[in-house]
């Protein structure tokens, strides 16, 4: 006889109840802290609510009409697209290159990988503050380096010139996302069967042809997932732009999240802020669905 075994079903045996119990907290968290504010935001976008007053009236599409006629909003929308696309292009190139490097074996690889992952682990605000010094109008290490190397005549006002400021934002966003993308691409690379790579070597393909004709096509689903994460992170990020340029100079470098914050919180126009904030949502959903379908369609599976 085995006296210590309980004769009846205990709670641990009841997977139906146990499952609900364990999922409960996470579900409550998502509903209360993501779902409810999200529903509020959508509702606010159709209202004329302001901070500092409890009045709430439906305004229909007024907010959307107003922002679509607003050059600052259109500029911010354009910037959002440029920053997102620009940074992700940079990320794909950097991540693919870095993954090739980390596939090789070399001394100090573990340390290098640790350093690589730092940008991803550092809080956005801290990193952005460090970058404001790198792009500083007087102390910019980039300018001084270029000057010392004799490559720069004159001076670059990184955060003072709208075009350069946008470039600076793209660089920081790419820097922030690419370690994560590298890890994903590295995992994708290691999932390519070694024999396929060797077959292409025997078939006579050199490094570049192997990369573009064999490895990248096979990596496409994985890269699509990495880019999808990157697009969502970048398009919804407030911190980098807010700290780096604050939307300046003269509102030329706003992206939608910073503009929404400025209008809705600082400017107290909750309705318009919410409208700006949720404006990108339908587009992001379309992009996400598109990329997931791409990943699914090109998921060719192994040779067997």
């Amino acid at each position: 006889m085995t006296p210590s075994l309980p004769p009846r079903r205990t709670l641990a045996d009841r997977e139906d109840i146990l499952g609900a119990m364990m999922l409960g907290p996470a579900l409550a968290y998502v509903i209360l802290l993501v779902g409810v504010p999200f529903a509020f935001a959508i509702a606010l976008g159709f209202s004329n609510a302001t901070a500092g007053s409890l009045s709430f009236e439906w305004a229909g599409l007024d907010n959307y009409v107003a922002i679509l006629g607003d050059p600052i909003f259109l500029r911010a929308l354009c910037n959002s697209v440029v920053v997102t696309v620009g940074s992700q292009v940079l990320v794909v190139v950097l991540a693919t290159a870095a993954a090739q490097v980390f596939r090789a074996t070399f001394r100090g690889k573990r340390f290098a990988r640790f350093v690589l992952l730092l940008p991803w682990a550092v809080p956005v605000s801290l990193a952005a503050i460090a970058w404001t010094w790198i792009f500083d109008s007087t102390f910019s290490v980039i300018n001084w380096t270029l000057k010392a190397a004799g490559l720069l005549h004159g001076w670059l006002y990184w955060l003072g010139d709208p075009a350069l400021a946008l470039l600076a934002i793209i660089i920081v966003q790419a820097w922030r996302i690419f370690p994560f993308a590298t890890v994903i691409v590295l995992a994708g690379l290691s999932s390519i069967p070694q024999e396929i790579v060797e077959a292409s070597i025997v078939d006579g393909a050199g490094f570049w042809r192997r990369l573009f004709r064999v490895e990248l096509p096979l990596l496409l689903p994985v890269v699509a997932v990495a880019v999808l994460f990157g697009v969502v992170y970048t398009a919804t990020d407030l911190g980098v732009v807010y700290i780096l340029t604050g939307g300046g100079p003269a509102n030329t470098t706003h992206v939608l999240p910073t503009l929404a914050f400025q209008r809705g919180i600082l400017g107290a126009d909750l309705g318009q802020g919410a409208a700006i904030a949720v404006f990108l949502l339908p587009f992001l959903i379309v992009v996400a669905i598109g990329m997931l379908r791409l990943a699914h369609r090109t998921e060719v599976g192994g040779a067997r």
Partner: protein
Amino acid sequence: MDLSIRDGEFLVLLGSSGSGKTTLLRMIAGLEQPTSGEIHIGDQRVDGDVPPRARGIAMVFQSYALYPHRTVFQNISFPLEVSRTPRKQIEEKVRWAAEMFSITRYLDRYPRQLSGGERQRVALCRALVRDPKVFLLDEPLANLDAKLRNTARDDLKRFQRQIQTTTVYVTHDQVEAMGLGDRIVVMERGKVRQVGTPQEVYEDPVDTFVATFVGQPPMNLLDTGDPSLPPRTLTGFRPEHFLPQSVFGSGEELRTFRFAVRRVEYLGSDRYVYGSVAVSGTPDATIIAKLPATIALAIPEGETHAFAVPRRALRYFDPETGLRR
């Protein structure tokens, strides 16, 4: 090791896993570098700096290693694209190769839409279009089911005879090795044990390793303690030569044994008879007799029978070194 492969020859590297046969193949291909020694293909020395693409070799991998994102046509044409062959010529060559392996109707499909046998033929096509000096095949039949393997083996041999290209073929399957090879290289732990035609390797193994590795069931080895032999000599004979004494004609010179039968295995075309013989040196050794179905004689289990081996089928080995005596 010192191994030279003749032009146009079908050479099989046979060995169990870890015997170094695949490593040897990969060194010929240039996928691995030898720590010492030289490799020549034709009159060109290729070890060291000559990359795989410059060696004039083509390789078929065990998993076929087809490019999953490319159609069959694009798979076969890949090596030609790499060598910047004109489009028209690529088209012609791919069609020619595809016809040779009768896969023309699959050219627009993707590898995942093909069966194992079809994939294997695509892999062979991809190797063929390069006009290589040497074909390197790494267990290309291992992933096929048993039935398909027979026809694939036949196709492979026919194809190699037709194009007359030197072929190095790696396998651990001795049936494949015997059936395909002009010569077989038996390898063990990185060393070549014997090089010879299938017949030489089977009938005149140079040592006890080859004697027991090649042949199914393996060669029987026992110390008979025969006074006419040098002391401590292993006598070897193939199971199919070990038959009831009554089946031999009177003109044959025989070595007879008292065979204590333990178990009889009926396999349709053959019967395997397991037992032992009462000899001095190795009293417990299991001896196997392989009786063809044409011998209908009843062999009851648990009894002792008079068995015999023709003297010409006996082989002698040194038990210390394993070498032939």
